[in-house]
Each structure stands twice: as structure tokens, then as C-alpha cells.
């Protein structure tokens, strides 16, 4: 399946885009997302294990990613 991964702030700058498309196996997890992201040359500018949100909630490595889910990489937050 194809999943769109949203990028923000410094991550969007690193990838030069507000999102990337990943090709994942159907029963994928956040760990799979991170593995695919890591293949991208721009990923060298990211921390080793960036935070991931699935459907606007922070996810762990084992969280499932299904077709149609909203997936995002979350740079270190700096609100306030």
C-alpha cells in the first residue's frame, strides 16, 4: 500500500517537501515507516528515531499503519 507521510518544519526543509510517499507492505507498523523513511538520503538530517504520529496521535514502533491512515513525522516540538 502507499502511505503519505506528512513532514513539518525542519523535516520538511530536509526533504524539500511537505510530505513523502512510501510504499509499505499491507500489515505495516510505525517501525516499517521508519525503515522506509531511513532509505531516503534526506533522512540523514533527522534523528535516528524520529517521533511518529498516526491519525494525529503519538505512536510507538509497534503501532499499526493501515491504508488511509494519516501518518506524520514530528520534529522536536518547540511550542510556548
Amino acid at each position: 500500500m502507499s502511505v503519505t507521510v506528512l513532514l513539518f518544519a525542519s523535516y520538511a526543509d530536509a526533504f524539500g517537501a511537505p510530505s513523502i510517499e512510501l510504499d509499505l507492505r499491507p500489515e505495516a507498523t510505525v517501525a516499517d515507516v521508519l525503515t522506509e523513511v531511513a532509505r531516503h538520503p534526506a533522512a540523514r538530517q533527522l534523528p535516528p528515531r524520529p517521533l511518529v504520529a498516526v491519525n494525529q496521535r503519538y505512536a510507538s514502533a509497534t503501532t499499526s499503519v493501515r491504508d488511509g491512515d494519516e501518518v506524520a513525522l514530528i520534529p522536536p516540538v518547540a511550542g510556548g
Partner: protein
Amino acid sequence: MTTTGRLTRDTIDASALVREVAGPSRGAIILFLGVVRELNEGRGVTGIEYSAYEGMAAMELRVIADEAGGRFDASSVAIVHRLGELSLEEVSVGIAVAHGHRGEAYEVSRWVIEELKRRVPIWKREHYVDGTREWVDPTGRRTEGATA
């Protein structure tokens, strides 16, 4: 009991925020305002650009306000975070907390700003007097240009 959390692109109206939480059963109101400073870690700042994962950030602000309201019985909480380009001395975040007792009001206020900084997906890019811009990473890592 009021609990609200939201993002805005407009100037934050501190008095309106206070009015949102005020009520005759709540004798103590604490308003926290975060303000754009002219210096950050010794570098001259001319402004800050805030951006967010808007849907998630708005939801997290509401969740924090709700959790804060429930943490101490009957506290009212209103949180608003600004997005966009801010000049020096503009308010980036406003948190109003009202409670029957001041001790709890201080505790809730402090808890809210720490949670907000810990988990709400908002980012800021500082603009410096030398014309450069940089995303602020409170974890101390420089994201851009970090690769050798």
C-alpha cells in the same frame, strides 16, 4: 468549568482569555503569557515564525486543557497558541487558569505550560539580527546541516 484549547493567527487578547475562565466560585486566576524575546542563548532575535501540525496541535491543546481541568477539581483552563510571524514582545502563548484556591491555580498553570512544551506539535523558526533563520530544537540537536 470551562476548558478550551486552540490555535490562532490573530493577536492574543489576554483580557478575553481571563474572562473565559473567570467565575464567582473561582477566587484565583493565573494568566501565563509567553512573549517573543530579543535574545535566545545569546543570539539577537528579530522575530519568530510559529508553525504547527494544525489538526493534531489543536487537539493536543484541547486534551491538555481537559486534563488540567480534571487534575484539580473545578479548575477552568483556556489555552491559546499563536501561529505565523511574530515580532518582538508579541505573545506566542496564553494560558488562563482559574480555581477556588491559588495553590492549585499555580500548579495547574505550570503543568499546562510544561505539557504544552513537551507534546504539542508546534515549531518555531527564529529570525536573527544577522539575517539567518533557524528552527529551534529544545533537545539541543541541530537538525539542518547536522550531517558531516
